[in-house]
Structures are given as structure tokens and as C-alpha cells.
């Protein structure tokens, strides 16, 4: 019997495994040429990854440039970051004591930022093997940004999720209904000032057991059973 797996598959492509940082620099150049001042900052970690930040006004246009000029036609994800430190800490406060003082300074990560909320997305170039993480500041007063649905069709559900979780509006999105939460849900759960209710009703019991790591008590080498291969 001839099996289907005996049939030849598509010819295997030869890929260059070394992702070239020059390609990443080329991405920044292409974005700068197309967006001008719209491209605010970029970070390239050598032989690892890259981040760019654009202004909210060119968010959609930047997506188009990434898709058509840079060739990142694979849509990975879209979401948002709330950079405000949580007023509840990590939910481990003693409920009987007054809440401790916390640092409330907003400090953004790579490529900086000016606002509390940022949208960010990742797209990938499948032929040259690199991905780009792109961020944009979302205005604090009226958190809204242009929709990517017309650029990447897959952004549809991601924007619905971001909308219900962070309260960011996506202008031009055809259908911004809730995707996970009930329709009448109030509040935006992934914002840092939304309390995690499970921790509110039942306080954190504290660290009760700490698992020992191998070789933690003794200075001996951890025993490696010699397996005959």
C-alpha cells in the first residue's frame, strides 16, 4: 500500500538561521522614511529582538508600513499595557493594618512613553524571520486609537479583548462588543486599579512553604543517575 506520507512534500526552503541585525536597522529606516516624526523611538537588542514606538496618530499607518513595506504580514497579537503601578501591590496586604505606602510613579519600559496606557502589537516577517513589537501611547483623557482591522484582519478579536479589558476604544472597529465578559460588566479588569476580588475577599495567607531547589541544603553536586544512552 502506498501511504500518503510517502508522497513528496513541498520542497524544503533553506533559511538563514542567523537573524541579521542589519535587517532590523532596515526596519527602523523604512519606518522613519514612511512615518517621519511619527516614529518616536526604537530599541534593538543585538541578535535578539526589536521594539519601536510610534505616535497614536500614525498607529494605523505604521501597521500598513509594517505589512506592505517591511513584509511583516503575519499578525501575532495586539494588546495594551497599563503602566501605572497597582495601588493594591501584589494583593498580599494585611487587611487589618492600614495599606502601606507605595511608589505610584509611572515608568514605561522599552522605548519609553508619556501616557499611562500604551497599545502594543507584534507582527512577524515569515521569510526573513524577525518580529517587531510596536507600541503607541494612548491619550489618558480619551483612550482611543485607530483600529488595525483594515490592516490585519486578525486584529478584530484582539481589539475587542483589549477594549473590554483596558477600556481603549478602537476607532473604525466594526464590532466592539465584549468578547469574554458579560455585556453589562462594569470596569476594565486588566487596568491596574481594578482590584483582584479574589484577593480582596480572602486575604493572601502568606508564604507557607518554600520548595527547596536541588542542591540547596548541601554543597554536594546533585546526583545525576548515569543513564546508558
Amino acid at each position, binding site marked *: 500500500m502506498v501511504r500518503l506520507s510517502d508522497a513528496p512534500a513541498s520542497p524544503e526552503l533553506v533559511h538563514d538561521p542567523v537573524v541579521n541585525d542589519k535587517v532590523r536597522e532596515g526596519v527602523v529606516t523604512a519606518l522613519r522614511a514612511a512615518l517621519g516624526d511619527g516614529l518616536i523611538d526604537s530599541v534593538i537588542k543585538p541578535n535578539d529582538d526589536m521594539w519601536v514606538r510610534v505616535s497614536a496618530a500614525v498607529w494605523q499607518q505604521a501597521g500598513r508600513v509594517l505589512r506592505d513595506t517591511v513584509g511583516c504580514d503575519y499578525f501575532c497579537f495586539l494588546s495594551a499595557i497599563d503602566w501605572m503601578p497597582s495601588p493594591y501591590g501584589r494583593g498580599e496586604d494585611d487587611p487589618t493594618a492600614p495599606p502601606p505606602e507605595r511608589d505610584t510613579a509611572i515608568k514605561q519600559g522599552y522605548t519609553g512613553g508619556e501616557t499611562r496606557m500604551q497599545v502594543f502589537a507584534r507582527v512577524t516577517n515569515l521569510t526573513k*524571520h524577525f518580529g517587531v*513589537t510596536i507600541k503607541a501611547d494612548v491619550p489618558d483623557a480619551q483612550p482611543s486609537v485607530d483600529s488595525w482591522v483594515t490592516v490585519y484582519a486578525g486584529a478584530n478579536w484582539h481589539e475587542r479583548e483589549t477594549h473590554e479589558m483596558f477600556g481603549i476604544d478602537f476607532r473604525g472597529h*466594526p464590532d466592539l462588543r465584549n468578547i469574554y465578559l458579560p455585556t453589562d460588566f462594569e470596569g476594565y479588569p486588566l487596568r491596574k486599579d481594578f482590584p483582584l476580588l479574589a484577593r480582596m475577599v480572602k486575604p493572601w495567607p502568606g508564604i507557607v512553604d518554600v520548595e527547596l531547589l536541588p542542591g540547596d541544603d548541601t554543597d554536594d553536586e546533585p546526583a*545525576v543517575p548515569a543513564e546508558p544512552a
Partner: protein
Amino acid sequence: MTDLADRQKLSYIAAQAADARLNVELETEGMTLNIGPQHPATLGTLRIIVRLDGEQVVWAEPGLGYMHRGYEKLTEVRTFPQVTALVNRIDWLGSFANEVPFILAAEKLMEVEAPPRAQWIRTVLFELSRIANVSLFLGDLGVQLGAITPVFMAFRDREYVLNLIEGATGGRFHPNFDRIGGLKEDLPAGWITETKQVMKKLRNFCDQMEDLLFGNEIFQSRLRGIGVIPAEVAKQYGLSGPNLRASGVDWDLRRDQKIALAYDKVQFKVWTHPDGDSFARCWIRLQETREATKIVDQLLDGIPSGSVMAKVPRIIKVPEGEAWVSTENPLGEMGYYVISKGDLGPFRVKIRSASFNNISVVPWVLRGVYVPDVISILASLYFILGDIDR
């Protein structure tokens, strides 16, 4: 190039017009059919609302959220080592594979690398998760199409793999075995020999499945040419894994990225299929299962000796920074965008799960198909509810 969304909008208008015509001209009514939330074809509580014109789907809309557990919020009150217990439950059929990208992201931020032996064992367990996950798919696929035998075979042979995972990690379903800097324990004695025997059984299982299912005429006629997703659409929706490769896109994160796993030490073939139909998606998964058994065999032949744990501090604080790591999980690209502020726990974790993107193409691909094909298309796209809802 017309934008995909424009086309989508046009076809949506056309669908609404067709719906209106149904009522007015022919004095017939369209029907809204609710598939799920509990339906065998949905592998969990996914609800699909389809509007029907006779036997044909006018539009379809998945209803999610029956199992949303808010893991992205929960990670913010956990320490880094605790997060693995959460993410185990995302794709529960291939649990170990969920832990790996998160741990790799944390290691990347800490600039720690697991010892070679840990990396190899991670890769072996990763591939075993793939086999456990996809072998169940092959059995379940038969059930969706009316063949009862394959599911019994699949459950029987998957059990061998789960026993191996249990033997190495102590957990059948939720191993929680990966640690920052390495693994919890080394492999037990005799595990390698047994794994090799099981891999032979699994290859035999793949052959049987191929003869029993994939060569079957009814099976082929139910899947060939049904639910075609072109490469351009697949990429725009972010389909990944076998669903993407079935559309002819040669992209596999095991081969195409630099990652601290042992995939660059083994020879394996990345299967693609030019058709993009339901059959192609199922066929790719079958080939990948067989390929995974070969990867496991090669890895077992060359596991280096040494420790399975790097020197890491007892209380793990991850330095400030952002990292994205994704791996080729059984269902597709699974990745974590981890932001740390130098604390015990992550500041924010964005979980990119494969099924969420894979299933977002459903409204597009179900338009115009017949009702029985809805089931086979959903089965061939293959999703795990925990992987959609997170």
C-alpha cells in the same frame, strides 16, 4: 490588493441582503442554529451561532468566554515560579509545552541559561506533550466524522505517553515541572529505554491512523476541498502551527528561531501542504506526530550528562525589562510577552495563545459552507477551549 476587511464587510452586507431576501421574496425564513455551548464538536464549551439559509451557513459567530479565567490578571499577583502552575491549564492536553516559553522568557530576562541536559529533557517532554495532544486529535477527528474506532486507539496510545510524562514529572496532566534555570528533577532510571519503546508504538499508531482514516474514501470526501484557507488569509489572521503550514506557509518556530532548546541538534522535516483545506490540516498533524517521535528518538540518543539545574538564587527576582518568547506548541505559536519591574512577580504578562487566533478565522471560513462541514472544519482547525479563553 483589496483589504481583507473590505472584502469581509462586502460579504457581510451580501449575507445580510441574502437574509432579507429569504424573508421577503421566497416567504421562507432563515434559521439561527445554536451549536453548543455543549457539543461534542466543540471540545469544551465553545458556542457557535450560525445563521442558516437551508443547509448553507449565511454567517457564523463563535461565542467565547465560558471558560475565561483571567490568567493575565492572576499572573500579576503571583511570583515568577508560581506562574507555571497557572499556565499549565491553558492548553491542558499539552501542558508541559505551555510552561516552556514562559520559563524561557524569565530566563532571558535574568540572563540565565539552563544546563544542556535540562534543555534536552525540556525538548523531549515538549515533544511528548505534542504527541499526547495531537494523538488525541487524530482519534477525536474520527468521532466527528462518524468513525468510532480511532478514538479508542488514540486514548489507548496516548495513555502510554501520559505514563511517560507522569513517570518523569509526577503529573499526568499538569506536570508543573519546569523551573527557572532548569528542571525540578532528573529523569528516573529506565525512562529512556521505555520511551524508545513507546515511540515505536506511537509510530505504529500513526501508520494505523493513516491507513484507517486518511486513506478512507469517506474521510477524504468529507475533508478534501472543504474549508479552504488561503495562505494570505491565514497569515493575516495569525493562524499558526499546523493550520498555517497546511496553507503552504513554511514556518516552524522550532526551526526558524534561535531558542534555548535542543531543536538545532536534531534533524527533522517541517511538513507543509499546499491545499489549505481541512484534509491538509489533519494530514499535517499526523505527519508532525510521526516526526515528533523521531525527534524524541534522536534526542534520547544524545542527552548530555550533567546537572539539570543552573545556579539560581533561592528567591527569584527578575531584573527589569521586557521579553517576548514564543515556541511551536502542539496547537501553534504560543508566546508570552513578559514585563518585569525587578520584582518577585511579573508586572504584566500578555499570553498569546494559538487557539485564540486559530479560531478567529471561523467567521470567515464558515461563511457559505454546509452544516455538516461546520463540524469537520471546526474539528480540523483543532482548538482547546482553555487555549482560547485563557
